[in-house]
């Protein structure tokens, strides 16, 4: 081998490895796709409904062979951070994102999400009017739709029919908080390790403050008035929190600060609570085969005081990143995943209990679904169409949303104040002081909002 050939071979070798490195970089994530196929990246929370969606992707590919969906699963907080960073820096890394009801209006206002109103109206088969009105309101800004709901939930009161019968009590169809607190006190039985009611006491805007804010609403209180003045120290708010604390003390679970959704679900399905006020989506787990209380549970509307309804409203939605390069393809996927047919597809292939609930009226007209959903399915449908996210409380409010305020600072405000209230639950900090400090925290965010 001469020196020249050796040098040539060397150059060729370097060239090949360089080319490989280049193509490797460019093709990452696109590997194995044919030309003409667009890859759409979907960042999503890793909950069961979304994992079901991943399982059904081949069905979507049968209809749209030229669109490849690349799903990236993340934990809820990670997703929020990753998606916020991506949209805020206009990275365009994710084409589609699952966005919680709390963020859709904020992101929509910032024009981080594509306005879907016209695209959705164009296709009559998609039937936008089939979505529950409150759910649609929750993901709209000034009547423009910025995301499409994938599944939704409200809140209701679950109670043990057998215990109520034993104690000779009857649960009214629309209970008041006064009645519920009384029942809880009567049914609490420390000897049998049983709480009267399980209410979330774990700090966090999405934990303690989900049920507590619905209570504040129905007690005539609110987070902010129409000109963004914090109302945390006003009677409606303080009365509600005081009532929440009293109910926990007299009829609630032991160690309330430990209890969030998951803990209450365990407690209730292990027969250790007579009532549980929480998400409608919990009913599926309560009635599942590994729950000790399956078949013994009755469902009624969320307890009220001064309003007619007080259920909350939450939905996980699919939105398109405003910076995405493949908006058309992304919309094709959104349309498929939130269509009437998708509900049937999930039901018939994965089982009816896995059908994403709480978004479309038509889902509740599928006989198999209603049969599988038992007692709570029709009630859920009713509540979902009755709640009013535009004005959930007694007084008007400058945002759309029930158990949250759609300003970026709210998760911070809610978190900090729930920590203060946790101290009050334990008796370390007088409630008056906690809410006084809470008012300051909330007002700081309100001032920010006033500036616009």
């Amino acid at each position, binding site marked *: 081998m001469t020196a020249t050939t050796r040098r040539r071979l060397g150059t060729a070798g370097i060239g090949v490895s360089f080319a490989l490195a280049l193509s490797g970089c460019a093709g990452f994530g696109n590997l194995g796709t044919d030309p003409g196929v667009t890859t759409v990246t979907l960042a999503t929370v890793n909950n069961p409904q979304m994992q079901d969606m991943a399982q059904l992707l081949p069905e979507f590919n049968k209809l749209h062979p030229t669109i490849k969906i690349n799903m990236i699963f993340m934990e809820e907080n990670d997703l929020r951070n990753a998606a916020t960073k991506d949209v805020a820096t206009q990275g365009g890394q994710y084409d589609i994102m699952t966005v919680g009801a709390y963020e859709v209006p904020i992101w929509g206002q910032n024009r981080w999400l594509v306005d879907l109103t016209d695209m959705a109206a164009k296709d009559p088969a998609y039937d936008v009017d089939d979505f529950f009105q409150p759910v649609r309101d929750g993901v709209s800004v000034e009547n423009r739709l910025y995301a499409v709901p994938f599944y939704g939930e409200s809140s209701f009161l679950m109670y043990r029919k057998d215990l109520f019968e034993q104690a000779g009590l009857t649960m009214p169809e629309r209970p008041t908080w006064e009645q519920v607190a009384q029942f809880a006190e009567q049914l609490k039985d420390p000897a049998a390790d049983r709480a009267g009611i399980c209410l979330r006491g774990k700090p966090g805007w999405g934990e303690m403050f989900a049920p507590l804010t619905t209570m504040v609403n129905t007690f005539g209180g609110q987070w902010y008035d129409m000109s963004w003045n914090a109302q945390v120290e006003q009677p409606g708010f303080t009365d509600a929190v005081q009532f929440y604390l009293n109910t926990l003390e007299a009829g609630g679970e032991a160690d309330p*600060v430990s209890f969030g959704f998951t803990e209450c679900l365990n407690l209730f399905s292990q027969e250790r609570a007579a009532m549980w006020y929480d998400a409608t989506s919990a009913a599926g787990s309560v009635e599942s085969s590994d729950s000790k209380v399956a078949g013994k549970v009755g469902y009624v509307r969320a307890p009220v005081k001064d309003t007619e309804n007080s259920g909350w409203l939450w939905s996980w939605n699919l939105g398109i990143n405003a910076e995405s390069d493949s908006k058309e393809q992304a919309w094709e996927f959104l349309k498929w995943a939130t269509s009437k047919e998708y509900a049937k597809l999930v039901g018939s292939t994965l089982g009816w209990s896995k059908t994403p609930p709480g978004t479309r009226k038509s889902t509740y007209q599928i006989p198999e679904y209603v049969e599988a959903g038992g007692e709570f399915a029709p009630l859920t449908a009713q509540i979902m169409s009755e709640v009013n996210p535009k004005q959930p409380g007694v007084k008007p409010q400058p945002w759309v949303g029930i158990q949250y305020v759609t300003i970026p600072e709210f998760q911070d405000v809610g978190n900090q104040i729930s*920590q203060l209230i946790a101290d009050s639950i334990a008796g370390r900090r007088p409630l008056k002081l906690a809410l006084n400090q809470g008012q300051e925290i909330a007002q700081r965010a309100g001032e920010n909002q006033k500036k616009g």
Partner: protein
Amino acid sequence: MSTTVETTPTIEAPRGGAAGRKAAKVELKGQDLAERKFARKLIAPGLVVAILITQIPFLATIYYSFQDWNLARPEERSFAGFDNYVAVITNGAFLPSVWATVRIVGGSMILSLLLGLLLAVLLDRNFKGRALARTLLITPFLVMPAAAALIWKYSLLEVNTGMINWGLGLIGINPIAWNTDYPATTIVFTLTWQYTPFMMLILLAGLQSQSAEVLEAADVDGASVLQTFRHMTLPHLRTYAELAILLGTVFMIQVFDPVNIMTKGAGNTKTIAYLLYERAFIGQQIGEAAAYGVITVIVTIVIATAALRTMFKIFTEEAR
């Protein structure tokens, strides 16, 4: 060049003071000086990289701390001056959080040091299955912090089904609502459980390095076991304990997982690490979080300098 020329000034320098050092400098001429300059050039890239790697994140943090930057309001990003620092001082979250950190880290430190000492003394003896016992005792330190927090939250401290309340029930004590009534204590439990093995290991190394002759001499002189322990072993262990405390503090001060999993920062458990996380990822206030970070670094440097000085004093006193 001879070796004596090179070594003499370095030994003399501390003793001779400024004059000695000057003399050493004067002696460097011609080739020596050129060599030293060349050596410095060789080291320079490494030094620059070291400075960049260690200081860039900190400089970036300082830069962020002067920005008004909320992740959720990107269009409003601007220079904030000292606003973030004013906010940190006026909103009253910093001092309680420092206090919470001191209480939690201090409490866990004392407990784990005492328990570690006890276990180390036991393990220092010869008995059958010592290796097995040592391995078993070390395991808590190997468990991931998040897993440890979950074990404590659900298996041990759960109000209805936790083992601790069950144990208390056997002796007639009513179930305790740990997380509601004693949140800081639950964090101290978890940290103590995790770091006792660490303290034990370092103290055990100290015990095993003790000269057997000294102990034997004490025995011959008629010292009781307790006297030997008090007057021979403990002073010997002092340096080891100091090392354990220093390293333990560095580890524990970063406590995050138990707070996030067990108490969510309620009830005096909002340590500095958790407060920073809250400001940055829940408040999404990058500027304010950075300001907290910068202040924490300054406070830490001040305290660490003072602490290290006293420690060195102790070391030198002991040497005399």
